[in-house]
């Protein structure tokens, strides 16, 4: 390589410090800035084109971000930090997680390294004569950057292997993304090559710190005679072109998710799992006396969605994580959350021809939206923070408003109106059994500490009677001051809301809140997780505050306080616990039921593989208890099979719907009677030798 002896000696003798672009004409330095500006302009243009295709204007996006900033960006920053920089959800898949970490982390470090050079050379050094890329900091930085270059190469290799060899069904090997990968690989490889060439041309005493470049230098030493300044400069030009090709062009490829996903995470960050946004507040709407014409709670076509939801759909990467965890999909129902979002996204970006709603145009089938169990597994898994269950409920609302639902669903809605329960049994029979057992109503025990919300299942379903009976016996034993609403209790409307009758749900919520307030109720205990999320979270979003606890939480605290004795022995074999979706994933109650299970069964407790946040649905969620959809297998059968595989002879649950579904599955389990299924309260009451109150 053509280099004089002068600078060689000079560099070798000095202490470690950064040397700015040796051997390159000064004009190159300015060319980088020109290229950077061109590249940013191209990227901005591509970004604008990308979001506008989804019907979102950059102004709306900017407004949305300003809104987050003005409300206090702490939460959004924390979520974005954990999900983007911490790659929390992405890491759940080992291969893809490592690949993402290598590419994202390495690219980030290399970009930072380049920015530091620019800052030193063109800002602190130029204006203040201050340099910081010196000494030990510089050496460590160089070593880290070499590691990043290797990491990037490894990550790109993994990505290429995945797209070209593993080929998951959801990933296509589109040419654009291959160009992006190639640009990254060339950038990293030429970076190391440049280091090596520089080391040979301008040796420094600390070159072993850039260990990867040093190894390349050793490898290319035999070629030294054929290397010249031209080759060095050409390599540098290739390096810069690769870097800017990626930076400017990534948004034109499937890698656009590096911008869209963090933005969507920021926009969706403040939402609780499973929470449905209010399409309107009926109380306010009625109070304002406004015209109801044109008021709608759902959407007929994705183009009607507000910009945040359109942006959300557009940010789907098609990774398929939702599909993998979806219980409806596992049971062979006609639903894949991935395909659903992709279909809506596709229709949003290029609407298909034809008139009518998305069902009439064949974008989706109605059975698809009715297959959803609202279990929230998909949304919890989605690294892009897409809310599939909410989107599905919004399509159901449209179907209900159009009157386009079958008789089974229409019947549930009619029965809710007439009988105040989805089962269609007379409202006056709700309290009959408990009245006979002398359970006090709130009129008989005004000012009771807890209102016990019994719920429809335990008021009417013979099997679920036992759960209320066990809870009441435990509350009585512990001396808890409680009362029930009695005949004036009625369905809280969870199934009505999931079926899509939003206005009916809100109307109901106002009436029930009024009943509760008229009795001065503030603290409520319920054994039904559906009631728990509805009364605790959904009513709160409508401005009605009640303190609601699940029976597992109350009973567990009674055990901890010593107000309930701990059972002595357990003969039920291996006990496992099925996390009801509404209690676990959607309410975050995981430990209290486990504490209870451990009190009952001690060492005999075994966890299911899909437990806690990863729990699998029983098949009743999202109102599916009340109607049928085409399927190859039953969701409850699959879940029971998981419990059987764990060797459980007793399956505990904490939801009357899960109880009914799993017990039904156990009754019809292949190979005869499956494991026993019972509520945690029933198991505890039994272990304490208590008779269930008002047992049939």
């Amino acid at each position, binding site marked *: 390589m053509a280099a004089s002896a002068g600078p060689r000696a000079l560099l070798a003798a000095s202490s470690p410090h950064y040397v700015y672009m040796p051997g390159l004409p000064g004009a190159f330095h300015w060319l980088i800035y020109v290229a950077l500006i061109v590249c940013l302009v191209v990227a901005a243009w591509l970004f604008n084109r990308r979001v506008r295709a989804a019907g979102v204007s950059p102004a709306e996006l900017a407004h949305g971000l300003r809104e987050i900033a003005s409300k206090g960006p702490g939460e959004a920053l924390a979520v974005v930090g954990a999900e983007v920089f911490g790659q929390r959800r992405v890491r759940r898949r080992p291969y893809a997680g490592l690949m993402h970490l290598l590419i994202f982390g390495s690219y980030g470090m290399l970009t930072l390294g380049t920015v530091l050079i620019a800052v030193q050379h063109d800002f602190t050094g130029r204006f203040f004569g201050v340099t910081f890329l010196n000494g030990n900091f510089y050496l460590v930085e160089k070593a880290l950057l070499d590691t990043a270059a290797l990491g990037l190469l490894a990550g790109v290799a993994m990505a290429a292997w995945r797209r070209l060899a593993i080929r998951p069904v959801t990933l296509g090997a589109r040419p654009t993304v291959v160009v992006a990968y190639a640009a990254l690989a060339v950038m990293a490889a030429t970076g190391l090559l440049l280091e090596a060439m520089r080391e040979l041309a301008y040796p420094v005493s600390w070159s072993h710190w850039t260990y990867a470049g040093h190894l390349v230098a050793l490898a290319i030493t035999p070629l030294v005679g054929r290397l010249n300044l031209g080759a060095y400069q050409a390599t540098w030009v290739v390096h810069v072109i690769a870097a800017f090709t990626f930076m400017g062009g990534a948004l034109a490829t499937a890698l656009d998710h590096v911008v869209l996903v963090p933005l969507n995470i920021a926009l969706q960050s403040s939402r609780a799992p499973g929470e449905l946004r209010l399409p309107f507040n009926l109380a306010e709407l009625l109070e304002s006396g406004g015209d109801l014409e044109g008021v709608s709670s759902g959407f007929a076509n994705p183009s009607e969605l507000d910009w945040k939801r359109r942006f959300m759909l557009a940010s789907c990467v098609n990774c398929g994580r939702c599909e993998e965890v979806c219980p409806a999909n596992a049971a062979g129902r006609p639903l894949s959350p991935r395909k659903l979002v992709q279909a809506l996204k596709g229709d949003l970006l290029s609407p298909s021809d034809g008139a009518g709603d998305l069902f009439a145009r064949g974008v989706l089938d109605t059975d698809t939206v009715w297959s959803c169990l609202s279990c929230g597994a998909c949304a919890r898994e989605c690294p892009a923070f897409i809310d599939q269950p909410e989107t599905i409920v919004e399509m159901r609302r449209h179907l209900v*408003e159009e*009157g386009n639902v079958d008789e089974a669903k229409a019947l549930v809605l009619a029965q809710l109106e007439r009988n105040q329960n989805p089962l269609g049994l007379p409202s006056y029979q709700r309290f009959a059994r408990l009245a006979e057992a002398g359970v006090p109503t709130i009129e008989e025990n005004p000012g009771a500490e807890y209102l016990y919300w019994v719920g429809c299942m335990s008021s009417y379903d013979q099997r679920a009677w036992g759960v209320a009976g066990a809870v009441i016996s435990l509350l009585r034993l512990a001396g808890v001051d409680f009362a029930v609403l009695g005949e004036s209790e009625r369905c809280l409307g969870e199934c009505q809301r999931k079926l899509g009758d939003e206005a009916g749900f809100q109307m109901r919520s106002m009436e029930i809140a009024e009943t509760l307030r008229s009795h001065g109720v503030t603290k409520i205990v319920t054994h039904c997780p559906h009631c728990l999320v509805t009364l605790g979270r959904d009513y709160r979003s409508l401005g009605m505050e009640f303190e609601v606890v699940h029976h597992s939480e109350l009973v567990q605290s009674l055990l901890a306080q010593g107000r309930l004795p701990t059972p002595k022995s357990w003969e039920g074999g291996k006990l496992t616990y099925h996390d009801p979706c509404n209690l676990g994933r959607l309410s975050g109650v995981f430990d209290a039921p486990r504490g209870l299970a451990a009190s009952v069964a001690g060492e005999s407790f075994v966890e299911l593989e899909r437990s806690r946040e990863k729990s699998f649905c029983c098949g009743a969620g999202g109102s599916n208890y009340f109607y049928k959809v085409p399927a190859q297998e039953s969701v409850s059968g699959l879940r029971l099979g998981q419990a059987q595989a764990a060797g459980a002879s007793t399956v505990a649950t904490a939801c009357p719907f899960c109880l009914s579904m799993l017990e039904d599955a156990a009754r019809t389990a292949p190979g005869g009677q499956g494991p026993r299924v019972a509520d945690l309260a029933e198991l505890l009451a039994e272990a304490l030798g208590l008779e269930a109150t008002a047992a049939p």
Partner: protein
Amino acid sequence: MRILVLAKHVPDTTEIRFSPTGELMVRQAPTKVNDYDRHALEEASRLRESGAEVVIASVGPPEAAKTMKEALAYGADRAVLAGGAWVADADPEAMAEVLAAIARRQGPFDLVLAGDVSEDGYNALVPGLLAAKLGTPYVRGATALGVGAASVKVTRLIGDVEEEVEVALPAVISVTRLLNSPRVISTMAVMKVPMSKVETVDLGELGLDPAAFAPGALSTRLSAVRPVQSKRGNEMLRGEPAEIAAELAAKLRGMGVL
């Protein structure tokens, strides 16, 4: 084409019960559109989509106005609700008289559709009486309708025989629940119906003499309602399947079933 649909405000029968003292407790029961009438409303709404005008006629208490909104949500142009103190004691004859007055005032109509029976009275008389008063043919029990310009083809199911009747319009047809699947009416759909679409009229406005509708002037009156205890019971048989089967057979033979 102009269509009149009869839609009745009725208490929900699943919520009606007898008090411990044997009184019929109707008042607290939720009310609704008579289920049979929903099928007539659905059919009329479908005909309206191809250009028919649909008017709903009803006899009921003031709170029936809310039920009329629900009936209108199926898709009808307006509703006429005849009310007054006399409604509480009205018999099918009186109802038909008032409905005929509405039909004449709002008419002429090409087709009158009604549910076969109402869930509260279960007389299945009003549509036939109305046809007599209007002097039109009456076909009851429609399971399918083919409405033409001058006539209507009515399919009826009688036992396991299906017959098809063609009648000239105007005509009164009462429909069964096999006719169609009424659409679900969402809460929002009902709320969106403006109250202005419900016209409330009294006997005077219909040109009828209130004296003829006084309790004493009516030909029938409901004199008593009594609960009837039906004997139902169950018995669980336990043991091995073969034993249970033998025991069950013996019991059924004992009852004379086998």
